[in-house]
């Protein structure tokens, strides 16, 4: 583990020497053990709820702080005066840069990658200072109009809170690693008011595997945080979606076009970030003090004509869903939001990409819907449907989380009627994005920051090797159980040195030629015709078991049987260590 000073911590013994304890302390300890002590598993679930509650509360405060900051800096109007639009993001950008460079050094970026790095590199350690830094700097950046969102920082704050609690409770290293994603799910769920999407995102992007051990806690934390958030900010979905329905399969052509447009736009956005971010980071250190301010100025200039692109832009998405813009305006907003968000993000201003991604998707979707409405004369409601589907489609193409994107559209809007078009458009955008931008956003961001984190996308698509991929037929090494003479006859006919025998009483056993010879000598010396005991019982494997599980079970046995799950006596094949290694080499 990296220490605060950058050194390598040398582990020390965890046990403390026996101490003299007073009578009172003895009683306290006894009572504590009897009444309060929780097993780590139970403690973990209690902690998940606590993390959810605290994360929910912090996210509520965070969202309110962003709004208050916006009122103070930009005013309550949706069209602030040009002077404010120019000055607020510029000056706030400078303040944010100072905070990030001097006080909260780990608060840069969106927060997703930092959380992932904490899980994979720092044993789940997210410093609490990062939580405070993220809260302050993101509220200032987003509230002043930087084109960023509050969701990814909420995710990191949740992870930070969880990590702090885990450290305070001195959880095991394994649990410490698991607890950060639990907090991340809680933070994201509260920020999005969407527990299912948050859980799936954390599994899909941060943990990478559907581990049963952590899934329950992740869900518990996400639900707890959403319950708390709804208690304070209301239970309405994030967007008010007008009535819409999927009428005919012919409409899917339009949604397929939307998938292509979103795919192309997401590639452009990804390339922009991939190109400019490392170049701006390479500039002299002093420029990093002014980069967020310069980004703020550029966004302010855009904001004079298009104030909608400033901030997270949720109210504008709502307007797009209610057909409040013509398709040209929607297209313009989508393109300039890509530019504004790209500028904000590459400048190092802290803030998330989720809200801008939804914004861009909604605008591009609405624009495609508007054009389709003009060409095909479909009802005006179709524009809103395209905007809704577009949110998920761009999300799938840009962030490369296809499952999350489908659930998110349904959950954020509370509308499940557009699932089919969403799935189709999302898949098209996702495949286009993968085809032309091989490395996913979070993967190349991590590499640019010097972290070689596992690519969840690759992990997700990795083929799991199973026992059936490595086993070989058991013919020639299986003996029918019988008396020693019978076994000997069969063994003499075989070239194998080891044999497997099934015995009803004690399962599969292994018998070697040596065992058979020894038994023969014993019998020739006058012993009765006894059963050869052999060694066992052997662990038994099944063809569908993952190979790494087989590797753990095989132990020192030269060969183990692979049996049918419905009939343990029936041998499907045999597996030896060499077979496993060969299968891994081939894969």
């Amino acid at each position, binding site marked *: 583990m990296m220490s605060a*000073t950058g050194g390598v911590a040398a582990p020390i013994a965890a046990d403390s020497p026996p101490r003299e304890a007073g009578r009172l302390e003895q009683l306290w300890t006894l009572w504590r053990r009897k009444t309060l002590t929780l097993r780590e598993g139970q403690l973990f679930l209690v902690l998940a709820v606590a993390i959810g509650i605290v994360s929910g509360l912090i996210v509520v405060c965070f969202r309110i702080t962003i709004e208050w900051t916006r009122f103070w800096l930009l005013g309550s109007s949706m069209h602030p005066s040009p002077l404010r639009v120019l000055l607020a993001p510029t000056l706030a950008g400078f303040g944010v840069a100072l905070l990030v460079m001097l006080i909260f050094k780990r608060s840069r970026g969106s927060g997703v990658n930092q959380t992932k790095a904490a899980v994979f590199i720092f044993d789940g350690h997210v410093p609490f200072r990062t939580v405070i830094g993220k809260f302050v700097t993101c509220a200032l950046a987003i509230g002043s109009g930087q084109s960023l969102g509050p969701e990814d920082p909420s995710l990191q704050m949740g992870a930070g809170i969880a990590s702090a609690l885990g450290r305070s409770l001195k959880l095991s290293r394994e649990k410490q690693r698991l607890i950060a994603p639990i907090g991340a799910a809680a933070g994201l769920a509260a920020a999005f008011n969407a527990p299912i999407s948050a859980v799936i995102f954390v599994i899909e992007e941060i943990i990478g595997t559907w581990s049963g051990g952590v899934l329950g806690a992740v869900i518990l934390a996400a639900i707890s945080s959403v319950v708390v958030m709804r208690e304070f900010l209301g239970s309405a979905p994030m967007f008010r979606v007008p009535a819409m329905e999927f009428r005919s399969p012919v409409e899917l052509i339009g949604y397929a076009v939307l998938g292509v447009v979103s795919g192309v736009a997401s590639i452009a956005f990804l390339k922009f970030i991939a190109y400019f971010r490392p170049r701006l980071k390479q500039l002299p250190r002093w420029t990093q003090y002014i980069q967020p301010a310069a980004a703020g100025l550029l966004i302010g200039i855009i904001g004079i004509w298009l104030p909608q692109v400033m901030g997270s832009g949720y109210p504008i998405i709502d307007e797009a869903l209610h057909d409040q813009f013509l398709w040209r305006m929607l297209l313009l907003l989508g393109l300039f939001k890509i530019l504004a968000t790209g500028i904000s993000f590459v400048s190092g201003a802290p803030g998330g990409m989720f809200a801008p991604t939804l914004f861009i998707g909604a605008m591009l979707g609405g624009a495609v819907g508007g054009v389709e409405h003009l060409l095909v004369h479909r009802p005006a409601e179709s524009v809103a449907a395209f905007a809704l589907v577009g949110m998920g489609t761009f999300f799938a193409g840009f962030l490369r989380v296809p499952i999350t994107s489908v659930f998110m559209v349904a959950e954020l809007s509370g509308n499940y009627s557009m699932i089919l078009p969403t799935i189709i458009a999302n898949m098209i955008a996702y495949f286009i994005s993968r085809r032309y931008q091989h490395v996913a956003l979070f993967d190349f961001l991590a590499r640019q920051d010097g972290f070689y984190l596992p690519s969840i996308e690759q992990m997700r698509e990795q083929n799991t090797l199973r026992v059936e991929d490595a086993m070989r037929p058991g013919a020639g090494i299986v003996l029918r159980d019988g008396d020693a003479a019978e076994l000997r006859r069969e063994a003499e006919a075989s070239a194998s040195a080891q044999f497997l025998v099934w015995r009803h009483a004690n399962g599969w056993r292994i018998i070697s030629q040596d065992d058979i010879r020894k038994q023969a000598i014993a019998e020739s010396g006058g012993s009765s015709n006894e059963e050869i005991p052999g060694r066992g019982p052997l662990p038994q494997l099944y063809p569908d078991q993952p190979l790494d599980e087989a590797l753990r079970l095989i132990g020192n046995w030269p060969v183990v049987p692979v049996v049918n799950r419905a009939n343990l006596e029936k041998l499907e094949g045999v597996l030896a260590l060499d077979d496993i290694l060969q299968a891994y080499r081939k894969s």
Partner: protein
Amino acid sequence: MAEGDNPRICPHCGNPLPAGATQCPHCNSRLSLILHSRETVLSLTAAIVIVLFFLTGFITRGYHEKLKALGEQWFEAGERQLHSGNAGVALEDFHTALVYRPDDAQIQFRLAEALAADHRDSEARAYLLGLLARNPSDAPINLALARISAANGADADTLRYYHGAIYGVWPKNPEANRLNARLELSRFLIGRNDTSIADAELIALVSEIPEKHGAELHAQAGDLFLRIGDAKHALPEYRSALTVKHPSANSVRGAGLAAYQLGEYQEAERYLERAHRLRTSDADVTSALVLSRLVISADPYLRGLSEAERRTRAQRDFAQAFSRLQACAKKGANVSTSAAPQSDLVALTSQAKALRPRLTERNLRLHPSQVNVAMNLVYAMENAATTECGEAQGIDEALTLIGKFRQGRE
């Protein structure tokens, strides 16, 4: 990296370990052990959660109050702009108000109205349809949609939404609003020349007009009845409108014209004279008044006339019609090329010449039924002259009208 290069760090508290120590003095102090026990941490966490809960509640309350205040502030600004005719500015204000109060149906509705006022019908329609989906029986939304549909020529939708407005739920003054919606629907139908449906809607409307404070509605209904030529229903509406202390001049005018169209010339004269005095006179009123007076002066069947006067009028009317017939026949003989009408005129002239000697004062007194015979011939002569020589004027027109209503009544 050699271990000696880095200070050894306690993995729990992060403090450096003293040289040679195997235990962290910070973590293993009694106080530290108590402070870092799971029970203490969980208790502290619970305490922090409680404090944070109240703090968040306090912050949230302030935030919601601020949002509410901002929503109201921008809504009022929008209302002011909309009333002063600046729909574009009102739109922005309503949009901003909605950001702070997204679920406020009133703001959403006013926003849609502002969109419609700004001629952004498709956007307004989309907004209203969204609102309607949530509350299909909302009458104001139906009415706004009906207006947009009417402006865009979507007749079927217009009728559907107007009926939605008439039978829907009004938050305030449901009766008056329903009547106004039906009145608006009737106007729409009249504008589309769908007079039979409009007549049915108006008949339904007048049956619902309240007894008190309904004068204005009665007058409007009367106007609409009159526009579709239903003077029979128009006149009672105007009569009802005139029962108030200070009736409108328009009601007086309408009543006069309706009575005139129904052949109630005495009543028509009364109303039309009153309208003339109230300076609401126009060409229609003047013409109707003049004709009414002529009819009253020429009609032998007028109630209250003495028999002598009735006979005198019949003689006078006959002379007038015969004179017009002769003039027309003379004129027609010079210009007409068609044989048939001329033969009618000739036949009627012959009949008139035959009848004229019998229309003496004495003969009429002895045979009162001759008045009817004379008047029937008067109508026939006037009609024939009109057919042959064009529209009747003055007293001839009055005689035609008397004949028309007389025959209609019979």
